[in-house]
């Protein structure tokens, strides 16, 4: 198990190096970072001076080394727009994004796992039918449209929920449901198919044959085995949630990293863009290490590898 974990940690480290390289490369997409960072009306002399000051004339590898050293210390430069350190700006917004993604994930798990189990146990019942159709709709619905429709119904027509901002639960409700719907649908379908597969296996038949009744067999024997793919998908879905937060936060004016980065892109505030992409990607990597730990608990075979 120690070897397995060490290998996973090393792999994650490599992934983070790759992430840092891509984040660094964002500025060089057009070939000249000075033109990206400076306003379009900057004079040639300004551009030359800026290039010299920022070290854009150095070899690329030297620049990357400097970028990486800064990134490791949380230094992505000053925000062009706010005049504050970019990383601090992003970190300040991180709790809002984590709250939103966390709430979305909680909603998804709280609905999807029980619904998926019931759906599988009572296959082809009305409940199963309703759950399956809902999941299919949820997977096909664009997040931002759902958000807008919720605002239309609950803020414009019924006037019961605020359409924007962060505050109490009433502020969290619509963004969390919007963000969580796709994940709910996905986890539900996975739970259903996983449970169906497990319920058809010999050891479940054995458990029933021993005289155990439905409930313990479903919840103890079957769920623990069906949970393995669910845990995997939770790790992956967190990436979907962090990415989806970009859109959801924009719609509901939720003051998180996603909205900040969309604003930063339209303001050409690239230090902030780099810092937020780096932070969101690192969060994703760290969560997936945690998912691997849960994995080794659920599936002892992994420890032996």
């Amino acid at each position, binding site marked *: 198990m120690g070897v397995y974990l060490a290998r996973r940690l090393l*792999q994650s480290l*490599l*992934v*983070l190096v*790759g*992430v840092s390289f*891509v984040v660094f490369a*964002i*500025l060089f*997409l*057009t070939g000249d970072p000075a033109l*990206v960072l400076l306003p379009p009306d900057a004079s040639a002399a300004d551009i030359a001076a800026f290039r010299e000051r920022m070290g854009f004339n150095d070899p690329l590898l030297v620049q990357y080394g400097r970028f990486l050293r800064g990134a490791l210390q949380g230094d992505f430069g000053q925000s062009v727009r706010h005049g504050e350190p970019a990383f601090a700006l992003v970190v300040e917004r991180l709790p809002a994004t984590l709250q939103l993604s966390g709430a979305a994930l909680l909603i998804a798990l709280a609905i999807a796992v029980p619904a998926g189990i019931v759906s599988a146990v009572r296959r082809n019942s009305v409940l199963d039918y309703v759950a399956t159709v809902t999941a*299919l*709709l949820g*997977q*096909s*619905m*664009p*997040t*931002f*449209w759902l958000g*807008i*429709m919720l*605002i*239309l119904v609950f803020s*414009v027509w019924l006037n019961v929920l605020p359409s924007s901002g962060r505050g109490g639960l009433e502020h969290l409700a619509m963004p969390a449901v919007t963000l969580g719907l796709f994940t709910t649908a996905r986890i539900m379908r*996975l739970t259903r198919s996983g449970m169906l597969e497990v319920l058809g296996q010999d050891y479940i038949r054995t458990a029933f044959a021993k005289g155990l009744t439905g409930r313990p067999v479903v919840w103890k024997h079957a769920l623990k085995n069906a949970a393995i*793919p669910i845990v995997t998908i939770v790790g*992956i879905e967190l*990436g979907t949630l*962090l*990415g*989806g*937060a*970009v*859109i959801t936060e*924009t*719609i509901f004016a939720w003051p998180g990293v*996603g909205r900040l*980065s*969309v604003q930063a*892109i*339209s303001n*050409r505030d690239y230090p902030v*863009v780099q810092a*937020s*992409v780096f932070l*969101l*990607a690192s969060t*994703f*990597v760290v969560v997936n290490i945690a998912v691997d730990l849960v994995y080794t608990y659920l599936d002892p075979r992994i420890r032996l590898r």
Partner: protein
Amino acid sequence: MRPAAAARAGVVDVAAWRGSPALREWVALARRLGRRRTAVFGLAVVVLVALAAVAAPWLMAFDPVEQSIGDRLKPPGWRDAAGRLHPLGTDHLGRDLLARVIFGARPALLVGVAAVLISGIIGMITGLLAGYFGGRADDALMRLGDVQLAFPFILLAIAVIGVLGPSLPVIIVVIGVSSWVIYARVVRGAVLSLREREFVHAAQALGARDGRIVVRHILPNAFTPWLVVATLDMARVIVIESALSFLGLGVQPPTPTWGGMLADGRVYLTTSWWLATFPGLAILVTVLGINLFGDGLRDTLDPRLKV
């Protein structure tokens, strides 16, 4: 004449093709797929949307970009002074909403097909190489995939499009280049088991070169999982295209895009609900159709595939 020889000679020998095992397999597959009612329904929806997109200029009485400021924000079912019906009403510039929704299918489907082809081809090549050769190359390619997956996709896409500027080719390439991982993983998984099969060992024993084995023996067998992934991924790409145009980073106005129309509709949400409602329904119906067809395809071809 064998089909391959016939193709080389430039003649199509129909009788030989009809007897070809590959073709027979595809026909049998189509039959089985045809028995799944939801899959057929999904395919019908997709075909209808595609036909509407192609035939849009002949189908619609209205020009999707023609403005008529006097007739702005009219509700669905409204008739203009000439007595012409606007079934879905008009938008904030007096443009016919139905015409815009139907024309909006064009960028969505175009980006969907083109981006899926790009990422599918990259992923197919990567998956074949990683799965067949294994070892260091495999490790390196799969780590590259992990790096790719660690990024919140939409954020990376808007960062890149923000720098390069939004245009149809940029959007297609950005989505295409960053969506290859799922194809690579699925193809690699298929190749890992295929390369241990007897027919591959037989080809190796006969002295066939690696390139020939991969292209002639492994690729055709890894194609079905690839096709399932490609179908379901197109649904995802269409949602992404509309999300990008919603953020103003898609195909630029006045060309109608579903995402762009939604962004406009959001502004007029308090007074004109139809502006944001119908383009979203168009996305929902299209994506639902693709998903239904893709699910049917998966259940028919490869029920154990986890996508």
